């Protein structure tokens, strides 16, 4: 087994009732790589993320992180191994402050809990203050203004900033593998480019982090990913460089047949 593979799946599958949403998919990603995951609507991209973060349990198949099988592990344990994600439909807590939302990303690294919260405020205060500095520097990468808005409820921010906060929350976990589910959905092309640059920047700063990114926008995929995997009806239909995949006949058909997507 070669060491550079951080994460891989083996014949990962799940069925909802009669529907095979993910069908014997084999993925792998090495350290520092950015893998683009594409496919028409309903092809199972989000479901794969849900499987490998422990939200759904696979019907069959297995998946490995740093050589260890994570099959059947609860979501929180998988997270603690170092897999972080964002959600296609944002799952920020809108009533909570920006800071709170980023803090939850640091959850399991915190040391001072219930008893300390009541009796050892000093220690907690120091930890909070350090965490806040880290949160600010993360937020600052994406948007300086977010730092000033850190005490405001996330619900008061514009959509694009919410996306950024969500990525910050995942980055706050200092993950080794980051799963981004359509991070640029609903953005203008300029905003998209900006976001991709930010993501690149983040990746360079935290060296060695691997990213799987789901995107519908092919310019984004082309510009950011080292390698691309295409899905259709839950099956992997192509894999390789962007050019290889986009030239693949089956991929073209999947997109054109479905809804005339331009590649």
């Amino acid at each position: 087994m070669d060491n550079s593979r951080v994460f891989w799946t083996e014949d990962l599958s799940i069925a909802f009732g009669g529907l095979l949403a993910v069908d014997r998919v084999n993925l792998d990603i090495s350290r520092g790589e950015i893998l683009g995951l594409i496919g028409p609507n309903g092809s199972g991209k989000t479901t794969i993320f849900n499987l490998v973060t422990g939200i759904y349990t696979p019907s069959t198949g297995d998946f490995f992180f740093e050589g260890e099988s994570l099959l059947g592990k609860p979501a929180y344990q998988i997270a603690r191994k170092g897999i972080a994600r964002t959600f296609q439909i944002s799952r920020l807590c809108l009533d909570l402050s920006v800071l709170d939302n980023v803090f939850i990303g640091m959850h399991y690294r915190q040391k001072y809990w219930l008893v300390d919260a009541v009796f050892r405020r000093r220690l907690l205060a120091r930890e909070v203050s350090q965490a806040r500095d880290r949160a600010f520097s993360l937020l600052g990468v994406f948007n300086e203004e977010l730092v000033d808005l850190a005490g405001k409820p996330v619900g008061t921010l514009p959509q694009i900033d919410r996306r950024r906060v969500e990525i910050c929350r995942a980055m706050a976990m200092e993950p080794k593998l980051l799963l981004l589910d359509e991070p640029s959905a609903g953005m203008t092309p300029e905003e998209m480019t900006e976001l991709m640059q930010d993501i690149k920047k983040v990746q360079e700063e935290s060296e060695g982090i691997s990213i799987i990114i789901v995107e519908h926008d092919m310019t984004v995929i082309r510009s950011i990913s080292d390698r691309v995997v295409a899905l259709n009806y839950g099956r992997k239909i192509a894999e390789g460089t962007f050019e290889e995949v986009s030239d693949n006949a089956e991929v073209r058909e999947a997109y054109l047949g479905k809804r005339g997507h331009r590649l």
Partner: protein
Amino acid sequence: MDDQQRTLAGPWGIIILLGVELIIYVLFLALLLVPGGEILAAEALLLVAAVFYFRRNPALGARIQQLFAAHARIAWIGAVVLVLLIPFFIASSPYWLFTIIIAGLFLTACLGLNLQLGSSGMVNLASAAFYAVGAYAAGLLALGWGWPAWITLPAGAVMAGLFSALLFVPVLKTKGHYLALVTIAFQFMVTILLDNMEWTGGPQGLKNIPLFSVAGYSFNTAINLGFIKLPAYANFFYLMVLVVAVVGVASQRIYSSWVGVTLSTIRDDEIAAQTFGVQVNRWKLVIFSLGNCFIGLAGAFYSHLVGFISPPNFAFDKSLVMVSIVILGGMDNVFGVIVGSLLLIILPEKLRVVQDYRFLIYGLVLIIMLIFRPRGLVPFKARDFLDLAGPVRRKRAASASSTVSEGGA
């Protein structure tokens, strides 16, 4: 703007602040001491007028808030002194003193319920049942084994915490309406069982539970200070203030900590919480038990306050009152719970002038308030941790002026 800031910081600011506290205090005492319903109507009008005034001048409200933030310590000292003086002003009316103690017990219980319902989103409509566990535990231990009250009080809390285990599985497996149903069913089960079991005294309940006494000093003695004689309830009052202070400070500290952040996230989105490494189940159980401990503590206190408990004291309607306090006051918000318990316990007593209609009014007010102000009287405020981690120090010199925050205490 800068001018204003300076006046706020100076002695005038402090005087204004204490003035505001004093006005609220006087209005509160007047409500209790002036007989009849007119005072209630007058103050209600005043309140409505004030609300409208502050709506039209939000700047004024904001300044008062700043004032309290800037002098948090003085504001606290002022408030504590005023609270401690309450028995002196209403010495002539033990009935109201008793009612305030009851409000304090509800406050204690509701701080526990708030941890479950407000902070973590776990519906608990069986709070009266856990209140009963605390009360009966204290009563039985005191009657059966002669344990002194300073042991039965924590014992009642612990017992309620232990009884939480009965609902551990449902708490993890159900949520929303279903958890509501589970807890209502549990509540009814407990009331029915209390009624039918012999060792809890059946429908008669427990009688002659010894009232508090510490080191030979019975709480049932009036306090004679020479210039004034405080009714015996004053003893209970001060003990209640102590309990509320401990539970209140603990609650506020939990709120303003990693635990608070974690619970809020669990409440708003369990899946997201799990995805970031939160052991959702573990936290739910810890908080469910801890909340019930607070509720049980209040129940145990109640036992030793009135000396006589029976099943109707712990029926479903008590659970309802507690839930209304938390929701009407404002969820996940210690201050909201304080406001809620004062209003919902003291107002119905004041409404005794309309005797028969008071529960009808209660129901209607509940509906109206929730439809028009679903976030409660004191809505949840997003955490900024300024109180804990201090004001934000900007490292990047480039980003100019340092008007980021007004600072905490």
